[in-house]
């Protein structure tokens, strides 16, 4: 099995003690790996480290077997924090430009954009400037930019934030299709029930460390999550 994302001993500390420590994480081809944690637990910092937005103090990252400097970034799609949607451009143009930045030739970009506009239900907004779109629809544009080139590695941070129920279902189906086609997906979320519907594996992050896993098919995911987090908090308090 191909390991799409491989991280070992990943550490990055900020002033004041925030950051992540000694993270080991794998995302296999065909797998949806969910990352859950409370606000400030370190989910976004970990994703930034995996995507070379931050350099680690220690540890290594491999994307499809390559170090960041040689990683096949054209085969990666991501959405971390803000969508890549420029307000002065309409949705279609934003997506064409995102495709170009992923190395897609101009001739192919148009067909690719038509496909994702239909898949994520944003075709009716195609000619509207991004600044006029609601936050949810801008998020859809950002997700479309991350998924349209059918990447092998997908990293999305809180992807369903601001999405309406229809958008959540369309996104869920879109990443399931890509995982079935062999992509490795890392997704962070606050919504445990949403994560349980798509994830093959759920890792819990707390205080900048991975503290355990949850069974996506477990009976009471919320209780299991808080038990893990409270046990970890108590362990830290004793130290």
């Amino acid at each position: 099995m191909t390991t799409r994302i491989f991280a070992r001993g990943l550490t990055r500390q900020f002033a004041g003690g925030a950051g992540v420590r000694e993270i080991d994480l794998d995302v296999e081809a065909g797998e949806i790996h969910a990352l859950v944690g409370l606000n400030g637990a370190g989910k976004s910092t970990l994703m930034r480290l995996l995507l070379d937005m931050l350099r680690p103090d220690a540890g290594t990252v491999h994307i499809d077997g390559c170090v960041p400097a040689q990683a096949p970034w054209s085969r990666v799609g991501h959405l971390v924090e803000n969508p890549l949607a420029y307000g002065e451009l309409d949705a279609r143009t934003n997506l064409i430009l995102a495709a170009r930045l992923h190395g897609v030739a101009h001739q192919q970009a148009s067909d690719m954009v038509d496909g994702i506009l239909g898949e994520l239900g944003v075709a009716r907004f195609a000619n509207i400037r991004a600044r006029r779109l609601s936050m949810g629809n801008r998020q859809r544009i950002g997700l479309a930019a991350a998924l349209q080139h059918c990447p092998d590695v997908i990293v999305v941070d809180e992807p369903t934030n601001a999405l309406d129920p229809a958008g959540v279902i369309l996104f869920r189906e879109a990443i399931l299709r890509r995982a079935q086609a062999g992509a490795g997906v890392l997704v962070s979320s606050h919504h445990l029930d949403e994560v349980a519907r798509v994830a093959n594996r759920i890792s819990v992050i707390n205080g900048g460390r991975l503290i355990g896993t949850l069974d996506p098919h477990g009976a009471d995911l919320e209780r299991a999550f808080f038990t893990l987090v409270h046990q970890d908090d108590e362990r830290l308090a004793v130290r």
Partner: protein
Amino acid sequence: MRLLRAALAVEGRKTAAARVTIATTVILAVGVVSIATGMTLAARSGNADVLAKLGPAASIGGWEGLIAVVLQITAAGGVLAFGVVLSWMIGREFDDGTVTGLFALPVRRDTIALAKLLIYLLWTVGVALVLVLVVALVGLVLRLDAPAPGVGILLLRLLALTILSALIAMPAGWAATLGRGVLPGIATTVGIIAVAQVMVVAGTGAWFPFTTPALWALSPGSVTPYQLALVAVVPAGFGLLTMRAWANLQLDR
């Protein structure tokens, strides 16, 4: 090269659609010429206040007088306008949060920075051409005296001054990168203008590259070719610094 072409296409499309660049083009071309025309007409009528502001340009009159006034206004306002636009082109990625989308791409970040700078320079050449064209049209509309052979050279000097003003505003792009936003770039532009004024008063003359374009445009005889060539240090140095800052960029704030 293919990825640079892609980055140029992206930055070109963004710049062409942006209100900031469109508004600045209009303000510079139409605004500068409107002020210059008003001042020329007022000077023609003998308005003492305007004559005092225009200085030696007031006594020239005709095409030369009009272009001298435009040169004077462009030398002061051009750097500010270009610095604001370059600050926006780079700083908006941080202010809008779109910078996260410019990571984890096959197009390297220093290539994106280079594309931004090249599109900026292309836009400034366009602005300079528009400004020259509008000045020529205004001269014809005002029925100024038949242009002397020297008028063409004056218009070329206006073209060069506009482009040189854009080149010396390039530290704004570096500041917008280091400061992660539009405002640090604009503050740096204001700083460039203020320091240039101080250096002129202090008498460093044309050896200070940030004052050279204005001194050369207003009084070409006071600037040597070496001093003029020294201006190239600013875009080359700050262009490389901006690209390096983008290559080493981390989202750690």
